[in-house]
């Protein structure tokens, strides 16, 4: 069973997002997503300061099996990207909720995060897929 931390919010497309104290939010892909993709060989990160809408494609994660789009969980502006992934995409596999984060964004409306899935709801999404 894959790791689904309690303190994060999730999307049905297997992104996670975490609010931080400074009003920004950090985005990555879930443990399930990295497991399904297999070893990553390339991560394409969004442009800095780009405005994104909910569901916009803003990153690409590529493994030897497949390339997969990463969608923005909420609307906002890209504040920082994880440059370490340029050299070491494997961080996403090793530590998807920590050093393998993809980008930091400033949500247009912090309330949008409340609309996303909590850990239990995301676990149910995974269970449905497994049926």
């Amino acid at each position, binding site marked *: 069973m894959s790791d689904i931390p309690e303190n994060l919010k999730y999307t049905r497309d297997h992104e996670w997002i975490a609010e931080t104290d400074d009003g920004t939010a950090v985005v990555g892909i879930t443990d399930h997503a990295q497991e*399904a993709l297999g*070893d990553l*060989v*390339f991560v394409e990160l969004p442009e800095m300061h780009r405005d994104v809408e909910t569901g916009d494609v803003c990153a690409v994660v590529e493994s*030897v*099996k*497949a*390339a*997969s789009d990463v969608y923005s969980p909420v609307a906002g502006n890209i504040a920082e990207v994880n440059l370490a992934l340029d050299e070491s*995409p*494997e961080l996403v596999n090793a530590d998807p909720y920590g050093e393998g984060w993809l980008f930091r964004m400033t949500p247009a409306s912090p309330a949008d995060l409340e609309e996303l899935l909590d850990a239990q709801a995301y676990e149910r999404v995974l269970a449905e897929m497994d049926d």
Partner: protein
Amino acid sequence: MSEPLVFELGRSGRLAGAQVPEAGAAVDLPPEMLRDSRPQLPEVSELDAVRHYTRLSQRNFSIDTQFYPLGSCTMKYNPRGCNTYAMLPGFLQRHPLAPEDVSQGFLACMYELQRMLCRVTGMTAFSLTPMAGAQGELSGVAMIRAYHLDRGDTERTEILVPDAAHGTNPATAVKCGFAVRELPTAADGDLDIDALRRLAGPRTAGIMLTNPSTLGLFERRIQEVRDIIHGAGGLLYYDGANLNAILGKVLPGDMGFDVIHINLHKTFSTPHGGGGPGSGAVGVGERLEPFLPTPFVGIGADGYRWVDAADHPKSIGRLSAFMGNAGVLLRAYIYMRMLGRRGMERVADYAVLNANYVMARLAAAGFDLAYPERRACHEFVVTLKRQAREHGLTAINLAKALLDRGFHAPTTYFPLLVPECLLIEPTETESKETLDRFVDAMADILAEAQVDPERCKQAPVTMPVRRLDEVRAARKPDLRYRP
């Protein structure tokens, strides 16, 4: 045993006499353009060079040596007759810039090829100039763009692409300046029509569809799709990758498609793989005819002639220096002439029959089908999700184990929406005995995985190289010889 690089075989001073160019200094180059060090070329004898490349060629899997059920690639037999006629000296020695009056035979073949492709797709005009499937796609979507702009409609900025599509479809749309809207697949494998209704609108430039889809399923509601897209003012693009399934049976033009590209190296059996040369001939209905890429072959007062931009001012233009890969086009032309109209229908008959036969036998042998309630077209999807969980028999492990049993692996991990999948396309050119041997090999791997799950993880064990480190190859590609 691994084969050394040709550089590693080299010894200073050896040379292959037949390959040595005439001596002579490059006197007309300015001195600053001349290199001051010798190029690093392999120094091997002629015999060593011949043996090296012969050994490498013998290690290849190829359609001439093994069954090659590579889904979505239509790896069928290339009849030797096509080769024989395309190699006639009159074709081989014709210069691409030869005047029209001494090229009438070649031009006649190309004209007839255009006409036959129109007949078998229901389109009104064809251009043979795209050099590969991806270039065919590019020219098709460029024509959709040119059509809307020509009408002064600049608001159409989106192309709809199903989630099961070939990766080239969204790439093509983006390359042509469009935003991609992804269409989900419904539970029964058809396009999600409700999602299509929501996404189609005044911003829709067109939709790119493969029918049958990359799931090997015929899109049953294609007429509804056509009505929705045409109703919204968009155009329908047909990706011809899977044309083999419906050849001579259903015409894309009758389904409502406005533009199509055909991979002649798939459906029309020109040699395939290794990156080319290919052919992505592109066909259009009346609305897009003015935008067709040039040159193509027309008929003038003095016989066949090239139609170029001067005659065709709204054309999206040229795609290459000449007009496609002449040798490939000739092979496709000869193949079509050898088959005839009835023969083309038999291609579809047997491609579909073979796929359904293998699908039914694999299901009986304990494999799970991605869409068990649907009839396959020319290919079908098996999912190893259950076997991967229970016995570690993932798609990649099964693919490697097949190599040990003398079969090229099917396409793995595509379409992306089916977990641990194999996309299997037997084509019409395989005998029942070959198909049976393939099913037996698959069943054998499954049985072995149930008894000894570690075995399949070790495969391949009989190949010149064992399991390759694909991750390291992608992360740290080593493409250049360094002494």
